[in-house]
């Protein structure tokens, strides 16, 4: 069998010089003996992952678009009816003033949270370089604890700390002389609720950002700083001329990632006030849940999901373009 195979595949390779060195012939025979199995092996290894991705990610992506063009409420769902309504679902949400409020709120919230956490993460990364080793370790351990805490656990703790009557924050503020905070409710308006939610998200997002940026800073060659020092550059000048160009691309990456994550936050917003009071802290992720699942208007909910996906796809496209530019060689 081996012999047949060898002659078969040797035939088209007519241009190969006849006097091959023995090592190369040996290698070539090795490769041919694997034959069909070797050629199929990569695809066999990839098959489970690709099937799972197409089934559990690809199909829902198609399905969300299809569903957004259907009228699908609980009635249609139970009867198994398929009612096409064209762009009616989109018309419904786009004409709803509340939808625009929610969209603008989501974007403002995302930008505020991302900007705060990235800037704070960068400042902490820069600060970590000038700390004594033991202070740095203490800071790193505490950040690790914040990072590792499950979202629902940290949200519960924040609700307790911000409790109206017995929360430690109000007690502390009163102790410091701000008597008006006695019994102050932090969750009586949407803006105040989202500020607390934002603080929680920033608090848990900073560790990842600070650790990644700190690792990036450590990678900057030391002699660049020595050169800047010899040239008598000030701190700000050194940052602009040495640090900034070196970490700019990393900073862009983590900013994109944070935006992707923070845009679709649901759990934190939901457990604080379920999007309230009176819908004032509802974001797009909460809206699609309320419309699609809670009210059972699956078509309308899917239309909201599609809007979310379009915004995210625009961001992702930018991110991937940058990533592929830097990793081109590795792909």
């Amino acid at each position, binding site marked *: 069998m081996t012999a047949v195979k060898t002659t078969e595949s040797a035939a088209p390779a007519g241009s190969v010089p006849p006097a091959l060195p023995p090592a190369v012939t040996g290698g070539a025979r090795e490769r041919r003996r694997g034959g069909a199995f070797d050629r199929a*092996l990569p695809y066999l*290894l*990839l098959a489970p*992952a*690709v099937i*799972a*991705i197409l089934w*559990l*990610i690809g*199909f*829902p992506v198609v*399905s*969300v678009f299809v*569903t957004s063009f259907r009228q699908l409420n609980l009635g249609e*769902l139970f009867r198994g009816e398929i009612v096409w309504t064209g762009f009616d679902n989109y018309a419904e949400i786009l004409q709803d003033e509340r939808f625009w409020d929610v969209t603008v709120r989501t974007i403002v919230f995302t930008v505020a949270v991302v900007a705060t956490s990235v800037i704070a993460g960068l400042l902490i990364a820069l*600060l970590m370089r*000038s*700390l004594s080793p033991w*202070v*740095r370790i*203490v*800071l790193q351990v*505490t*950040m*690790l*604890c*914040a*990072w*590792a805490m*499950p*979202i*629902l*656990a940290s949200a*519960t*703790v*924040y609700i*307790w700390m911000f409790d109206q009557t*017995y929360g*430690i924050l109000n007690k502390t503020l009163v102790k410091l002389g701000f008597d008006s905070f006695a019994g102050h409710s932090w969750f009586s308006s949407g803006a105040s609720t989202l500020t607390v939610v934002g603080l929680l998200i920033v*608090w848990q997002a*900073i560790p990842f950002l600070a650790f990644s940026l700190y690792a990036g800073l450590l990678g900057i060659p030391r002699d660049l700083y020595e050169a800047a020092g010899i040239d008598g550059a000030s*701190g700000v000048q050194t940052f602009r001329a040495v640090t900034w160009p070196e970490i700019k691309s990393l900073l862009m990456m983590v900013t994109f990632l944070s935006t*992707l994550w923070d845009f*679709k936050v*649901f*759990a934190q917003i*939901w457990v604080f006030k379920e999007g309230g009071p009176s819908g004032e802290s509802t974001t797009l992720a909460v809206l*699609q*849940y309320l419309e*699609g*699942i809670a009210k059972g208007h*699956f078509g309308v909910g899917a239309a909201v*999901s599609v809007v*979310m*996906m379009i915004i995210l796809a625009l961001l*992702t496209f930018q*991110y*991937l373009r940058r990533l592929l530019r830097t990793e081109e060689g*590795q*792909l």
Partner: protein
Amino acid sequence: MRRPVANVFGLVLAAFFAFPTYWMITSALKPKGTLLTSGYDLVPFKVTAVNFVTAWTKQGFLSSLANSLTVTLTAVLASIVVGLLAAVAMSRLRFRGRKGFVLLMLVAQMAPFEALLIPMFLMMRDLQLYEHLTSLILVYFAVTLPFCAWTLRGFVNGIPIELEEAAMVDGCGRWGAFQKVTLPLLGPGLVATSVFAFITAWNEFLFAKVLIRSQDRETLPVFLSGFQTAFGTDWGGAMAASVLFTVPALVFFLIVQRKMVAGVTAGAVKG
């Protein structure tokens, strides 16, 4: 910045990051009567374990803990196995369409799962998996798989192929070389990847809330989100449940920290 000034800033920040964790633990340790008072006590005067007993024996806590562990561990195990197969193919083998597969993993990793809530719900309903833990296992498998495949590909890339080739020269088959050389060196990478996948699935709330409605099948995040129904104003009990929820995640996190520092193939080529 001068070092003492920087250190002061660093310690203030450390307090900022540590306080919620500290407050969760001390609130869980305080006796019932001392929590809902106007007294100001940053340090607990009396310590008790009674809140932990309350949380542990609370209706639904143990079943949701078991559900969370089942769902998370099954999904992570599946992602690691399937992801490793794909990672080895992408990193070690040369074949037509490789770039396309790598790109697929990268794009799939970016998939906005939260926006797929409605089609997932409808799909699980069609598959008769609604209200079954299997539906959550499938979702968490899908969420973590692209990440696992992508990250493990990086770890496999980090192990010099020369090591495998050396083993093959010494008479190992391709499988033998992989099993005896690459797999052991991949250990830390497997641990790190599965920990991050674990944390993702352990944290997940939206799908757990939507796909499971009955109380005896809910996972820990959903159980905790209803703490006001479960615990009322028993903040000590709620904090104790939060501590119990945090412990597995924290333990796994600390494991990765150590493994990551150890370095994946440090010194492998020298020997």
